[in-house]
């Protein structure tokens, strides 16, 4: 499955692992914060509508 990485396998795999983990973390955090912000906005809009 994995290509033959020779003696530098640890370096290459760790570089990919760290980078992909960081990118994923960034995307997940971005989406989570975005969802929360949009939920807050909906709530605020509903309140505003109710209060007239």
């Amino acid at each position, binding site marked *: 499955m994995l290509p033959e990485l020779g003696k*530098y396998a640890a*370096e290459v795999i760790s*570089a990919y692992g760290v*980078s992909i983990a*960081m*990118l994923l973390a*960034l995307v997940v955090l971005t989406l989570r914060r*975005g969802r929360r912000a949009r939920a807050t906005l909906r709530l605020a*809009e509903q309140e505003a509508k109710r209060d007239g």
Partner: protein
Amino acid sequence: MSIWSYANPVKFLALSARVQPVLWGAAGGCVCLGLIWGFFGTPDDARQGSTVKIIYLHVPAALMAINAWFMMLVASLIWLIRRHHVSALAAKAAAPVGVVMTVIALVTGAIWGQPMWGTWWAWDPRLTSFLILFLFYLGYIALWEAVEDPDTAADLTSVLCLVGSVFAILSRYAVNFWNQGLHQGTSVPVATGGRTVADVFWYPLLISMVGFGLLFIAMVFYRTGTEISLRRAAALRARSDGKA
């Protein structure tokens, strides 16, 4: 219709909702394709062995780290000159993405440097400049966090971004003067149009660079939307509090 009409948050959000699915799909596709092709489908370099595969992460991340700052600079200028809130928020939204790109570039560089240069870190001009860029990002984000009034925060961070850009460029030359480097020249010299990378490595690298770029754009669109929502929610709250 001019580009400025997208300074209206409603129009911006409409555009953003239309392009985002495409952007996210294309970004994910390009990043996956570039990295998988690079990881599984390219040969080892004669001298670097398999560590050459790190280039598909390192170069795109470094490219986007600089371009993210450049985008923030342009957005800050637009905010200072034309006072479009979307622009200021886009600059704010881009900064954390830029930080992550900078860190990826630094970390992958260190992992590559350990077997190749025999050291995790060298005080080489390119490395040092990136470290300084990282510090500028941190200061910029910290200033956004620290100022309470959002418009003042946008003003102050914009000026910091302008002044910081000047000093970042100065630092780049100062650092060059201070130490001769280990780092090889750029792999993708845009100005001359040539390149120092062989075709087998070049195509996956190119796809990866495009992917990172698209990912950045998609992320900025989404995060700007987040900031607009937060700002609008705060405004609605303030209004209803004022009424009560």
